[in-house]
């Protein structure tokens, strides 16, 4: 529901784009992705623009204010860019119901011509459903897309053909995750269910309704699942219900994290869990369920969290949300500086 409200809100704001000086006030960063070399960061906002920042120049000792602004900003889609994903050579962006691919090499040379643009086969042609989440299944080299039409579309990255559609959710899909070893796709949606799909058969193997578990449920917030991430046998999911850690083999919740507000993205990092959502901070939690620290940041509410693990020099954490600024953390304990859209 929040996503729908946000998209209506952002489309109405696109009409107000003529008031250029207020653009920054109403900007929200929805997605981020690091380049495969680890030296650049791409961020997508609610106006459908993608900005590419040079991390190496922003982190260098002689950085100026200019190095904290994008090296390239371009309009990628007509609608908000809710999801960005980087493969070894391309940046994939999802907006307005379609997926475009941009070559990283071309983007670094400031060439904004898309390599390809594809659209999944939506049943209804009246309303174009937005794409909320994208991830890649490396074993099959396929792109998994989840969005507003309650289905998961799987596209083969080499040929561009949409191989299959996974149906089962009764409301739109917020988040996706892939477990390579077991060959499973996990999806969380507005209907409050986390479904586990087998990517070969396309059948829903399990369905966990998180809001039905008393310890996780927060009826005052709703039952929707907005963040989902997995690591070996463990899964983190949250949203309306509290952020909780699940053991997938026994399908049981092991720890509940007492974070107020709905979490929008969570990641496993070394022995900790990093989580962002409503609330002006990045929460560091331990697997046992305690909240170790809450680091304040600029945006009032955060939408996306990204860790640059591709490079050894620019190992940073970046968060973006309801602000035109993206906070960069070189040391997890405090905010170092902010990039400006």
């Amino acid at each position, binding site marked *: 529901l929040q996503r729908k409200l946000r998209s209506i809100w952002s489309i109405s704001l696109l009409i107000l784009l003529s008031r250029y000086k207020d653009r920054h006030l109403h900007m929200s960063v929805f997605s981020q992705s690091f380049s495969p070399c680890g030296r650049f960061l791409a961020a997508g906002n609610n106006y459908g623009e993608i900005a590419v920042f040079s991390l190496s120049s922003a982190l260098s000792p002689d950085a100026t204010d200019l190095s904290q602004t994008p090296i390239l900003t371009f309009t990628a889609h007509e609608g908000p860019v809710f999801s960005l994903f980087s493969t070894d050579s391309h940046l994939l962006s999802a907006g307005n119901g379609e997926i475009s691919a941009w070559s990283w090499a071309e983007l670094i040379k400031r060439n904004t011509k898309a390599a390809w643009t594809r659209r999944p086969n939506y049943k209804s042609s009246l309303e174009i459903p937005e794409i909320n989440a994208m991830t890649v299944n490396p074993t099959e080299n396929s792109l998994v897309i989840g969005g507003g039409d309650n289905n998961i579309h799987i596209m083969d990255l080499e040929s561009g053909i949409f191989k299959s559609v996974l149906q089962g959710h009764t409301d739109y899909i917020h988040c996706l995750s892939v477990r390579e070893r077991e060959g499973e796709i996990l999806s969380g949606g507005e209907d409050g269910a986390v479904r586990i799909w087998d990517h070969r058969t396309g059948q829903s193997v399990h369905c966990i309704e998180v809001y039905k578990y008393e310890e996780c449920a927060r009826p005052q917030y709703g039952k929707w699942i907005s963040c989902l991430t997995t690591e070996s046998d463990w899964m983190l999911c949250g949203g309306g219900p509290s952020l909780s850690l699940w*053991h997938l083999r026994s399908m049981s919740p092991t*720890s509940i994290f007492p974070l107020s507000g709905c979490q929008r993205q969570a990641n496993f990092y*070394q022995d900790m869990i990093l989580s962002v959502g409503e609330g002006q901070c990045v929460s560091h939690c331990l*697997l046992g369920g305690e909240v170790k620290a809450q680091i304040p940041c600029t945006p009032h509410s955060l939408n996306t969290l990204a860790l640059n693990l591709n490079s050894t020099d620019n190992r940073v954490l970046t968060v973006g949300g309801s602000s035109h600024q993206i906070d960069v953390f070189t040391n997890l304990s405090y905010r170092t500086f902010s990039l400006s859209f």
Partner: protein
Amino acid sequence: MGAVTDDEVIRKRLLIDGDGAGDDRRINVLLKSFTKWCNSTGSPEEGFTQYQRMLGTLAQCEFSMGKTLLVYDMNLREMENYEKIYTDIEQNITSAHDKISECKKEIQRAKRIRKNRQEYDALAKVIQQHPDRHETLKQLEALDKELQQLSHIKENVEDKLELRKKQFHVLLSTIQELQQTLESKYDCCRCALLRQDGLWVCWTVWRSLYKGWV
């Protein structure tokens, strides 16, 4: 060309004459006084005093030379000392670097261990919520036994029921037969005997049934 060498000469002279004002001047004065003393025509006492004075200046010059030599030695030794300290510090730096990388690896390992421990704790918490396996097994065994006993009892009761049914069937059929024979047209003695037999059969069957029930 001339200017360069001039500068060099000036620089060298300044350097040499840098410490202790007038070493150079003293040597010049000594030379001048020596030549003056050689060519002097004064009295022998004056000559002697001048000679003493010259010896004094010579001693001063030797003294300052000795001092400079010592300072030079000292500088050499200081240089060696500094070289030693420099190599020591370099070694310390490299060993500190090594220790740092070791510690970093340790930290990574410790973090992994902590993560594993936390996962273990989380799973243990969930497992604790479930009842103990031994207790459940014992409960299962007890329930099994109860089941067996109850099925045993059920079998017995069913057998008894079967037996009673058969016995009642026999009784009823004998009664019916007796009725039939009584209703048929036979003479009185036979009737009486038959009636007695029939009644006796009924009575035995009834008694056995009664005994069986009790």
